[in-house]
C-alpha cells in the first residue's frame, strides 16, 4: 500500500521533471531537471528493492555524467531561438520517432502479451539483511561474465579513442604549459644590451 502511494508520488514527479527537461528554456535548467529525474528514477528502483542499481544510477549519472554535461552546458552560450528555427522542417521526423517510442512503451506496458510473464509480481520480498550488491556481483562474475567483460573492454576502447582524438597533434593547435610559463626567467624574455650613448643629431 505504502509502496504503491510512494510509487505514484515519485512517478508523477519523474514525469513532471522529464517534461521539464524538454520544456525549460535555459539549458542549465534542463540539466537540473534531468538530475531530478535521475534521482526520482533511483527512488523508483529503490522501491523495487534494487538498491545497488539505484545508488549506481546516482553515482554514475548524477555524480559523473551530469557534472560533465553541466561542464559543457555552462561553457556554451546556447541560442534557443536559433535551435527552434528548423522546427517545421524536422517536425515530421520527430512525430515519427515519437510514434515509435509510444508504441514501444505500449508494448512494454502490455508485456504479458509478449510472453515474458508478469513482471510486477516478480519482486520478491527479501529479508532485511539480504545483500543486493553481493547477489548482483555474484551474477555478473559467473553467469554474465563474458557480456560484462566485453562491455568493459568496449568502454575502455571508447575512453582510449576519446583521449587520442583530443590529444593528437593538430596543425595550429595551441597548448598552454603552465609549468613552462612559471619556470620562465627574466633572461629568457628580456635581453639587456649595453651600448654607448649616441651623439645628438
Amino acid at each position: 500500500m505504502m509502496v504503491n502511494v510512494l510509487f505514484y508520488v515519485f512517478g508523477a514527479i519523474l514525469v513532471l521533471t522529464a517534461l521539464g527537461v524538454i520544456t525549460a528554456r535555459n539549458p542549465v535548467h534542463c540539466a537540473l531537471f534531468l538530475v531530478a529525474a535521475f534521482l526520482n528514477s533511483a527512488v523508483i528502483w529503490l522501491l523495487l528493492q534494487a538498491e545497488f542499481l539505484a545508488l549506481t544510477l546516482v553515482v554514475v549519472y548524477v555524480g559523473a555524467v551530469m557534472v560533465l554535461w553541466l561542464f559543457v552546458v555552462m561553457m556554451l552560450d546556447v541560442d534557443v531561438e536559433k535551435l527552434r528555427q528548423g522546427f517545421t522542417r524536422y517536425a515530421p521526423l520527430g512525430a515519427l520517432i515519437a510514434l515509435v517510442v509510444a508504441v514501444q512503451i505500449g508494448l512494454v506496458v502490455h508485456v504479458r502479451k509478449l510472453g515474458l510473464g508478469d513482471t510486477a509480481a516478480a519482486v520478491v520480498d527479501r529479508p532485511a539483511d539480504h545483500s543486493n550488491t553481493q547477489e548482483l556481483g555474484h551474477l555478473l562474475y559467473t553467469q554474465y561474465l563474458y557480456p560484462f567483460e566485453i562491455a568493459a573492454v568496449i568502454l575502455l576502447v571508447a575512453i582510449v579513442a576519446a583521449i587520442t582524438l583530443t590529444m593528437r597533434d593538430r596543425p595550429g593547435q595551441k597548448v598552454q604549459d603552465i609549468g613552462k610559463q612559471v619556470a620562465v626567467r627574466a633572461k629568457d624574455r628580456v635581453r639587456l644590451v649595453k651600448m654607448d650613448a649616441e651623439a645628438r643629431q
Partner: protein
Amino acid sequence: MTAPDFAISLVYIAYALAVLLTFGAILTWVERKQAAIMSDRIGANRAYVRIPFTQVKLIWLGLFHGMADGLKLLLKEDFKPLAYDKLAYALGPWLAIVPVLLVFAVVPFGGTLDPGRLFPSLAEWFGGRTYPMQIAPIDAGILIVFAFSGITIIGAMLAGWSSANKFSLLGALRAGSQLISYELVMGLTVLGIVLIFGTVNLGTIVERQSGTVLGFLPAWGIVYQPFAAVLFLIAGIAENKRIPFDLPEAESELISGYFTEYSAMKQGVFMLSEFIEIAVIGALFVTLFFGGYNLPWMNDTGFVFPGGHAVPLSHGWVVVLQLLTFLGKVFLLCSFQILVRWTLPRFRWDQLLRFAWKFLLPLAIANLVVTAVALWAQQA
C-alpha cells in the same frame, strides 16, 4: 516500523545532527586556534559573553568567536548580484550542505544499543529488541557515501555558474573537474577495504575491525591497508576543497571562487558545509580505517587484554565509551586535517589534476590489484 523503532530512529537523527552541527561550529574555532598555535600566535581571544549585571566576562579561550560569527552572518544583508539565475542560485547552498549531512546516516557511531537494558522501566515497551547505533543500517552503505558526495559537486558548479561572475564560473569549473577526479581515487581506495572485509555495509565493516591481528594489533583497516588509508585521506581533503586542494576557491586567484557572489548566511552555509565535511571525512576515515567505535581489546561486554586479564563493563558504560571513542577519533582526524591545511602550500592547477590522474590513480589501482592478489593467494 513500530513506535519504539521510530523513537530510536528519531533519537539517532537528533544525535547525528547535534554532533555534526556542533562539529561544524567548534571546528571554526579549532581551526583558528590551532593555526594560531602552529604559527606561534595567540589567536581568537576577543569575543566574550558578560554575565548580566556583573563585570564577569567569559572568554573561554575565544570560544564565543564562533557565536559572534554566526550572528554576524545571520544579520548581514543578503546581497545578490545584479544578473543571476534565481533557481540555480537558490539551489546551490542547499545542494552543498544537505548531502554532506545525509552521508552521516550510514556511518555507525556506536555498537549495538539495547534500550531495554539501558532503561529498565522501558524494557517492556522495547520488548528486548536491540538496535545498531547507525541511522540507516542498510547494506550498500559505501555507495550511499559516493552517491551523496556526487550531488555536492553539482551544488558547487551551480553556485558558481548562477552567480554570473567570471571568477565564480572559473571556480565552478575547477570544482567540477577536481571533485570528479578525486572521487575516482577515493572510490578505488575504498574498494581495497571492501575486498578485505568482504562487504559494502559500513556497520559490518566496523564490526569486523573489532578483533586483533597477530595477537596484539587491533584489526583496523589501516593495519591491512595502510597505503589506501593515506590515499583516502588525500582524496578526502581534495573532495573537501581545502588547502592544498582549495583551487575552486583560491582567494589569491579567484576572490572566493564559486561562492564569491554569495553573502550573509548563504555564504555561511558554504563555510559550514566545509567544516561539517571535515568531520564527515574524519568519520568515514575512522569507520573504514580506524575501527570506528572500537577501542583495542574492547568488545560488547568490556575489555579483554592480551594477557587474558578481563575488565567487564555494564551495557551503559560500553555504549558511552563507544560513542566517546568514535567522537574522539573523529576529532583527532579533524585536527589532523587542519594541521595539513596550515602546513602545505596550494597546488598549481595543472599539478593538481596531474597528481590525481597520473600519481594517485595508478597507486590506487596498484593497491587494489595487490590486495586482490594477496587475498586470492590466501584463499588458494
